[in-house]
């Protein structure tokens, strides 16, 4: 291997295909132009070399046609190239609606992942083949950049903001995950591995370790912070009812319309008075500095979960009342939503067939790095 260097990266996602097509198109186009001009330069330089010291070249005439020609031609020619390149971008830009979400936190100098089912990993990411994965990313400190060459995806991970990217892996295997935005001393070691697994292996991996789903952690936090003391859903509520609100477009007191998405939720938690829902007073305190990035993400997931047509948890007098539930078990009445591992989307297994919950006790930190199931390499 050492003597025959690999010259092309693995192509392991659906998006990579188009990027590679465009790359080869550009290689052919630019290579063609470059070679042609090089041939002309060499030809002229050799053919018209100076034969003797006092040589005087013949009269030359400029051609306006030629000038305007090679000015306008590239101008026009670049437009379709631009459209091709932009089309590739936008083709890859929007994740499919059924994409599975994974929450990513970058920090100096590691990648942390939270799966909706509750798995948490550091510097490893397990995903199934053939399933679109949407990464919802944020950073705890400086700007990082999520870069998986085999998937040809690349997105900056910005502190206090949510950015997203997505991919659909096409080949099982282990792939490098790099941080490509310089982030400090150990930047070069902020490397992770993406394990792309066959769906069956992925299911096995999922089963190995799980806790209460991410939304459940969010709900606990929601109660613990006593958010439900205002967001009650009563007629006299001092704050909007949050059930079913995700994805809706609501009006603010300034009369603007905003869509409730990840960044709006984030803003509303950190800067409650920035865009107040119409009809309510700006009385919510900020939680800036009180929540870790991962905790915030669990809140977002919780609000999204109760946004998908299920009821918000009723207010609970004792915020500590709800204990984390093992994933895979259908929770009792206090949890009016289904854990996401039970969604039919997950690699086709039915919720009933979920394996038994894993060993670790609730509340204990995430299990990290379960032995990777067999991979394609």
């Amino acid at each position, binding site marked *: 291997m050492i003597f025959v260097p690999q010259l092309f990266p693995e192509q392991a996602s659906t998006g990579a295909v188009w990027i590679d097509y465009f790359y080869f198109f550009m290689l052919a186009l630019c290579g063609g132009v470059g070679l042609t001009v090089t041939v002309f330069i060499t030809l002229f330089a050799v053919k018209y070399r100076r034969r003797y010291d006092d040589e005087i070249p*013949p009269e030359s005439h400029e051609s306006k046609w030629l000038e305007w020609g090679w000015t306008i031609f590239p101008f026009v020619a670049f437009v379709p190239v*631009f459209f091709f390149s932009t089309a590739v971008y936008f083709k890859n830009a929007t994740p499919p609606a059924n994409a599975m979400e994974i929450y990513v936190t970058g920090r100096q100098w590691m990648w942390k992942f939270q799966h909706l089912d509750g798995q948490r990993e550091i510097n490893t990411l397990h995903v199934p083949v053939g399933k679109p994965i949407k990464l919802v990313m944020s950073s705890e400190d400086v700007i990082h950049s999520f870069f998986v060459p085999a998937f040809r995806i690349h*997105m900056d991970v910005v502190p206090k903001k949510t950015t997203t990217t997505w991919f659909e892996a096409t080949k099982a295997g282990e792939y490098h995950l790099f941080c490509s935005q310089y982030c400090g001393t150990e930047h070069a070691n902020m490397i992770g591995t993406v394990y792309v697994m066959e769906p069956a292996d992925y299911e096995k991996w999922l089963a190995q370790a799980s806790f209460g789903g991410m939304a459940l952690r969010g709900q606990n936090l929601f109660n613990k912070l006593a958010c439900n003391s205002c967001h009650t859903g009563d007629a006299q509520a001092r704050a909007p009812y949050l059930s079913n609100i995700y994805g809706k477009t609501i009006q603010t007191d300034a009369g603007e319309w905003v869509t409730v998405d990840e960044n709006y939720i984030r803003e509303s938690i950190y800067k409650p008075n920035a865009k107040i829902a119409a009809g309510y007073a700006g009385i919510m305190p900020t939680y800036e500095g009180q929540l870790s990035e991962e905790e915030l993400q669990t809140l977002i997931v919780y609000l999204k979960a109760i946004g998908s047509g299920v009821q918000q948890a009723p207010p609970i007098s004792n915020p500590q009342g709800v204990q984390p539930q093992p994933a895979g078990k259908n929770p009792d009445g206090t949890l009016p939503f289904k854990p996401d591992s039970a969604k039919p989307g997950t690699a086709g297994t039915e919720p009933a067939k979920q394996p038994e919950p894993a060993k670790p006790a609730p509340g204990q930190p995430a299990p990290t790095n379960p032995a990777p199931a067999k991979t394609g390499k």
Partner: protein
Amino acid sequence: MTPENALPKEHYLNHGYGWKSWLLTTDHKRIAWLYLVSITLMFFLGGFAAFLIRLQLLTPQGEILRNDTYNKMFTMHGVVMIFFFLIPSIPATLGNFLVPLMVGAKDLAFPKINLISWYIFIIGALYVLWIILSGGLETGWTFYTPYSTSYSTSNVTAATLGVFVLGFSSILTGLNFIVTIHKMRAPGMTWFRMPLLLWALYATSLIQILATPVLAITMVLVAVERFAGVGIFDPALGGDPILYQHMFWFYSHPAVYIMILPGMGVISEVISCFARKRVFGYKFVAVSSLMIAVFGFLVWGHHMYVSGMSPYAGMTFSLISYLVAVPSAVKTFNWTATLYKGSVSYDTPMLYVLGFLGLFMVGGLTGLFLASMGLDQHLHDTYFVIAHFHFIMVGGAVMAYFAGIHFWWPKMTGRMYPEAWGRLSAMILFIGFILTFFPQFILGYMGMPRRYSVYVPEFQTLNVLSTAGSTILAVGYVMPLVYMLWSLKYGEIAPANPWRAKGLEWEATGPIPAWDNFPVTPTVTEDAYNYPQRPVAEIERERAAGRAEGRMPELASGD
């Protein structure tokens, strides 16, 4: 070759002796020398850092530097090479020397400001050197926030203020050039009779004047933000890191044109001289410089496709980025056409120009890859970007700078450099360059991110190639330093116009200009590059005669 065996009695170099006559001079030619010496030192400092970087990358685990030392090295390499070498390189040395000579003036419009700008430069340079020696800087030359404002523990505050100070050196030089070109042209020197180097420097100066202050204020904000703990750019304090990127690239993208445009000007000068032909499409080449300068302001967002910027803004930037390539392409086509039916010699400056044409073209064309939003998804911040940038900056700007230094060396010093050594070093540089940077394109597409002090093993082979190339490159850079220094004392005395070049600078007094350039203000009566041409009819007659006598028409170089 040598009509005279001695230099003239009175010239600008022996006009005065002692440090005062140099450090307090307002003569543009001496200030050019002050810059030349300063930036040469900076070039080798930055080059030393680059060499350490390449040595570190010889093995995946990097045996030489600790991670933070490595980070300081690439930061030093970037800061020194960009702010202290590339930006002042051609404008402040060749530009300072040539602008008044080329327009036919005694000096720049504001000689004192010119000297002040060198002092600002040298103060900034010493200051930044002190920063580097006293603990260093490890943010990368881009100073991205919030790393630079809140997390880096190195000397960021001091360094940003250093860059702030330095900016004014650049601004003052640009201001001087614009006024000189507008107001000090000799009688008859119309805009379309100006040498193309002047057009290029004029366009460069516009960028220096209009873009640099934005960087300056951005750097002040970073410094004050660090000092006061307020968040304009740090999101944890309410700021916006992407705003920083907008402001930074508003300068730093046009800044790459500050670096390459003067190089393009030099190429036009040299290629027409060594092809003995007027630059083909003179007006297009001239105006394309201005086009590059103006459109260069509209494309900064192509550095930010994956930063979280709006994709619609990205589209706009992408389209304009494609279009900004057109004027550069036009220049390349015209240079190629200039060779057609010329009389091409292979003297050292011309070898550098031919090297430039090839390398700049690769650099420019790969720029189109990066202008594409789709491909940038993959190539952003990888070695592909590094390779592209170095093909333009080292393969382009530095090659042009070397071409220019060799071309005007006889005028600057009154002496010739050893020609054989010159040709050898040009070829070594070309080969070393290709070997160093071409593998990086492949590395980049394979996904090796930039600014990595250690890397995964599969990237090793190409990295070894690249490091091997860099040793050749290093030899290529040291050679000119040695023989140029040698030639200062032992070089053959140069004739007044060794290349039989056109242009007022060659018509100034003798082999080396006098203190006040022109004893009598010259009057310009002809276009630039008005090289003698043989009428086609005459060539036809000779051919016919030759055919009649049954010999090959050897003399005619065109057909």
